[in-house]
Structures are given as structure tokens and as C-alpha cells.
């Protein structure tokens, strides 16, 4: 008997169907949480936690699927010119309910008609995952700053939490061959966004990410550089 069946090429289909199915369940779950929350007058900590976890699963799944496609060369970015504010807004809207639930003050510093070239769906989803993390670790405020630096467009997400733990700060996020630091949700999220940033290329430059604890608010600072 064959114990190790050879790949029959169906794995991609199965993976996509599985993810689709989990996402449907997740959607139903989220919807039921919302409906239950609406019925209750006050906010319930358990329900909030439930919603937060569901959003996390959702991000992880999306990232898993994209990484799988990158790995099997079935992925290419869809680069378009797009207002940066639309990308930031999309990330914020994805996390809007959580920010509201935690009473977080979300501030955005971005010029209205600043444009950038990127795969906007991929970038806003990556940022949403980072923002999801920031929402978890910040105390009161999160600041999103869009700027230009050395010919790159940068989007920074800063918080007033405890900052990144030392093993993250010591890691080279852009060396995707060295993956010691990739563990837990924060690590996976950072890995994903750094791979996606790296796929963005222009005029000999590649995108990358940087993290430190130099936030103006005193906590962690994440910065995405797009060429």
C-alpha cells in the first residue's frame, strides 16, 4: 500500500475550498456575534474578545492563502496608482469596530491627494493586520503617518503601548530566510507584510519594513516603505 501518495495537483483546489469554507463559517460566526451584541445593551468583554479572535483568524487565513500562492508562483501583484488615504482608510475600516470597542483614539496624518503605486488590496490588508495588533497592545492612542522618505512612500503605525519585545527588534525582518522571530500572530503578520513589501519593486528599489520603539506616542512603531 502506498503510504505517501504523490501530489495529484488537487491540493490548490482543496486548499482554496477549505479556506472558502472556513471563511464562510467565520463570516456566519462574526455575524451572529454582531447580532447577539446588538441584542445586549451593554458591551460584553467576551463578545468583544470573540470578535477580535475571529478577525485574527481571518487575517491569518488570508495570509496563508496568499503565501501559498506566492510559493507556487500563482501570484503577482496588481499594481495601480491609488490615493494613499484610500489604503489607510480601508485598513482602518476593517478594524473600525475593534477601535470603537476599545475606545482607541485613531489619528491619521495624511495629505488627501497623495498618490502611490502599489497593490492596494494587499497593502491595505497587510496594514489592517498590523493595525489589529497595535489595537491589542496600545493603551489609548494610535497614530498613522504617511510621509515621503528617500524616494520611498512610508506608512507608519505608532502606538503608546509597551513596545515590541527585544527579540523582534533584534530580528532582520527583511531577511525572509531567517525566520526565528516568526512565531505568534505578531510575527506572522510582520513576516507577511515584509514579504509583500519586498514584492513591490520600482527603478531598482524594493519595498521593506522597519520596526522600532521610537513612537512619538512612546510605544511601538511599524513603518512600511514602498518604492
Amino acid at each position, binding site marked *: 500500500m502506498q503510504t505517501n501518495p504523490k501530489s495529484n495537483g488537487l491540493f490548490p483546489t482543496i486548499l482554496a475550498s477549505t479556506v472558502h469554507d472556513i471563511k464562510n463559517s467565520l463570516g456566519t460566526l462574526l455575524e451572529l456575534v454582531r447580532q447577539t451584541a446588538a441584542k445586549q445593551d451593554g458591551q460584553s468583554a467576551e463578545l468583544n474578545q470573540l470578535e477580535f479572535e475571529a478577525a485574527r483568524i481571518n487575517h491569518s487565513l488570508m495570509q496563508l492563502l496568499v503565501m501559498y500562492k506566492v510559493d507556487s508562483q500563482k501570484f*503577482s501583484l496588481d499594481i495601480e496608482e491609488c490615493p494613499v488615504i*484610500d489604503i489607510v482608510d480601508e485598513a482602518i475600516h476593517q478594524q473600525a469596530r475593534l477601535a470603537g470597542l476599545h475606545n482607541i483614539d485613531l489619528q491619521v496624518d495624511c495629505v488627501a491627494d497623495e498618490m502611490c503605486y502599489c497593490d492596494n488590496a494587499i497593502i491595505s490588508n497587510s496594514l489592517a493586520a498590523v493595525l489589529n495588533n497595535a489595537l491589542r497592545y496600545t493603551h489609548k492612542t494610535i497614530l498613522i503617518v504617511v510621509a515621503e522618505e528617500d524616494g520611498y512612500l512610508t506608512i507608519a503605525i505608532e502606538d503608546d503601548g509597551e513596545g515590541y519585545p527585544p527579540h523582534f527588534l533584534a530580528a532582520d525582518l527583511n531577511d525572509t530566510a531567517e525566520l526565528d522571530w516568526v512565531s505568534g500572530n505578531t510575527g506572522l503578520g510582520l513576516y507577511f507584510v515584509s514579504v509583500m513589501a519586498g514584492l513591490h519593486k520600482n527603478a531598482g528599489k524594493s519595498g521593506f519594513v522597519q520596526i522600532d520603539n521610537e513612537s512619538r506616542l512612546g510605544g511601538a512603531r511599524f513603518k512600511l516603505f514602498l518604492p
Partner: protein
Amino acid sequence: MSFSLAGKSILIVEDNPVFRRAMRDMLYSLQAVTVVEADNGIAAINAMSKSSFDIVLCDYNLGVGKNGQQVLEEARYRSLIDYRCVFVLISAEQTTSAVLGVMDSKPDEYLTKPFNAQQLMSRLTRNFARKEFMASIDKALAGGDLSKATQLCDALLLSADKKMHLHLLKMRAELAISAGDFDKARQIYHEVLEHRELPWARLGLGVIDFQNNNIEEAIAGFQSLVADNPMLMECYDWLGKAYEALDQYNDVESVLQQALQLSPQSILRQKKLAEAADKNGNLETAEKAYKSVVKLGKHSVHRSCSDFSGLAKLYAKTNAADNALKTLEEMRKEYSNHPEAELRASTVEADVYKTLGNEELSQKALLKAVEICSRLGNKAPRDLQLEVVKTCFLSDEHDKAEEILYDLIHAHIDDEQFLNDLRRMQSGIGMDNHSEILIQKTKQALIATNNKGVALYKQGKFSEALELFEQAILTMPDNKTIIVNMLKIMIHDLKVNEFCEEKNQRIKALINKAKQIGVDQHKLGILQMEYAKLRQSQTAKA
């Protein structure tokens, strides 16, 4: 947010009741009033045929029946939604967009599940803003007024809207290509590429090469583009077209295989693969592809009776007569009272019964085919007429075959690709170069007529030239070269002679005719633009 859904009519297409309810609640919370729900593709199509919607929110995965992409294709194909409608395709997977990417049938927006009210609202706001900005151009285009659309586009480009600038440039370049103004389009693409390497601009340059008949260059461009952007599905389609133009059907087959591995759901691509593999004699690939086509066609507006007859023919080739007849039976069930389907079925049957040794049934089927074919005349697809010719030859009905061939060659004498198909068919049945003399004679006659017509035109004898072409068209119906020449003369006539309504009507009718018989859009575009300019100056004078 200032934008509200009040006053917008919205259709939700979703099979899952929990999501449907969630979406409905979401829409009501955004002040929506008119919300219609459909839980499957057919219900969605019915709803769209009954009333017009400003917004359609359609899930991709609708369980059994049509999927969301098929709903969109059918809605656009049957004009159930117009340029003002925002169609949002919702899916669980973020990368769906790339996988589904089909020329001409992209939704206005993709949304990934799960999403919340804020996300939906900001997407809709953005889309409505964009549609409003582009409305005048889209309206002109929907009315077929290329020249007006171009003018409006130029005017908008002068406005300083940074957000829309690139979008307008892309549109302007596409308009230029439709109008045959390749220099302008090329200039725009180069300008865009100077700032940023964008696949659509690179693709545009390839398309221009293709239209200018620089096929080798076009292929080189498309190849390097797919190497960098493996998910740029349109590029595979263009590569296929380019190889087809060079008659390299092995390459057509392999490029379509590659595309279908990435995106197996596209019926039109499967169809092309089936035809190419069939031509190449790779019957196994062709059979698999035809089966997919029939299966995908079940819920697609792009289905056709030729899908079934293609599969049946293939079975006939592989000596699976039973399967062939069964497929034809299925086809008759799906297409009752459909002369083209009946013609296809009879043609294949004549062949199948012959191999089964049943001369009587074979003869009967052939007679039926010939009868329908002559009844349909030019309305029968030309590839099908070729099939009938082939079957006639094989059944020793040479007179019938020659009769149809004569008309086919006269009608399509300036279409080298078709003539190659014809030659291939004849070689396939051991009749190499059978029609070569007729083809050459017809070509020479066309050239002679053209030269004579152009000479008359140069002498300013417009009506004589037109008269000549009118005569020629009787013997070469639907000949593109002649129609285009007639248009050129009539437009020139308007320039130098007086303007009258009768001439106008004639030009319009000819333009329609040219569209019908498939004159290349860019060749026709140049004439349309010239004519539009003339009309404008006429109205200005009046």
C-alpha cells in the same frame, strides 16, 4: 459620511441566508430603502431583467447554478445593467480577481468576505464618485460615439484631477486604439511607462504592435510581460491571438494550457484551447477541453451549440460513435428549434453514420445539412459551412461542395486566416490546393475591381466608383475591403461635395454593415472619427 444609499436601488445576490440577512441589515443601516434579494443566479438575472439597479452586490460562490462571474457576464452581455450600475463581486478569497480576470467582464469592485458597513460604504462612495466623473465619456461610448468620447476625455485630462489622471490616460489610449490612432496611444503608454512600469501600459504597446501587424514584436512583448506578471490573464489571451495570426497553433495550445492551469473557469479560453488542440491533432487535450466547455457552458451566457458539436466531432474522430450520437442528442434537447444547432448536428451525423457503415442515414443527414446550409446562406457560421463542404466532398457530393465553397471564397477572399483554415481542411481530406485556382482568380478580380474603383475615385468620379463597388459586392458579399473602400469614397464625397441626408443615411448603414461583418475596429474607427468631424463641421455651418 455624506454619501447615502437612500434613493439607490440595490440587488443582493447571495445563497447563504445568514449573509443575506447581514447584508440587508447593513444596507438598511446605511439608509437604503429599495433592496431586492436573490438567492441564486437565475433569480438575479430575472430581477435585473425586470428592473434596473444602481448597485448589485453579488457573491461569487452561489452554490449550484451560475456563479457570480457568470451572473455578471450575462448581465453585461444582455445589457441588463448599464454603465451607471456599480457591480460588486464578493468572494472569500482575496486573489479571486486575478483568477477570474477575463477581458471585458471585470466587476467594478471586488470585496472580500467578511466585510463591514464602513468598508462597503467607502467602496461604494469611491465607485460612484468615479462613475460620476466618467459618466459623460461612458455615455458617449455606450451610444457608440467614439469621437465625442475622445473629446470629453481630452477635456477631462486638462482638468487637474490628480486621482483620475492615470485612469483617464488609460481610457484615452484605449480610445485612440479603437480609432486607429496608434501614434497617440503609443505616446501615452510611453509617457506612463516613463514614470512607472505598469503592466497595462506594456500590454497596450503589445496590442499596438499586434494591430500594426508586427506580430513577432508583439509576441516578444507579451512574453516578457507574463514572465514578470504570471497572473496577467489578458496577456495570455493576447499571446494566443498573436500565435494564431502566425498560424502557430502549437504555441496557441501551449499558451492557453498555461493560462487555464491558473484560471480553469474561463469558458472562452477553454473553447479556444479545444479548437487549437483539435487543429493540432491532440485529440486527448481537445476532448478534455471540449468537455470542460460543455460543462462550464451549462450556466454561461457564452455557451453555444458549437460546444456540443465540437465534442461530438471529436468523439467521431476517436471512433466513439456512441458518445458522439449521445452528445448530439443532448444538444438537440438543449437547442430545440435552432437551425444552426440542427445544421451542426446533421453535419456530424452524416460523418458518424458513414463510419458506422450506415449509408442511408448518413445520406439523409447530409441532405438535411445541405438544405439548412443553403437556407441560412451567409448567416451560417463560416467554420460550419466549411464542415458541410468537407462532409459533401467525403460523400462525393462535389457539386454541392463547390457551390458552397464558391460563395465562401468570394465572401472571405481578404481573410487569409480563414483561407488557411480552408486549405487545411482540403489537405486533411487529400485535396491539397484544390481551390487554389479559384482563390487566386478571386483575389485578382478583387484587386482589379479595387484598382479600377480607386482610379475612378482619383478622377473625381465618385458615383461611378461607388457603382462599381456596388456591383462587386453582389458577387463578393460581405467583402471587408470593398465595404471599407466604399466608406472612404463616400466620406471623401461629403468633404468635397454638398452634404445631403441621403448620403448620411447611406454612410450610417455602411458603418453598421462594416461592424456586422467584423471589419477591424481600428480600421473602422479612423473612418468613424473622420465622419464625426465632418458631421460636426456641417452642423456648425448649418
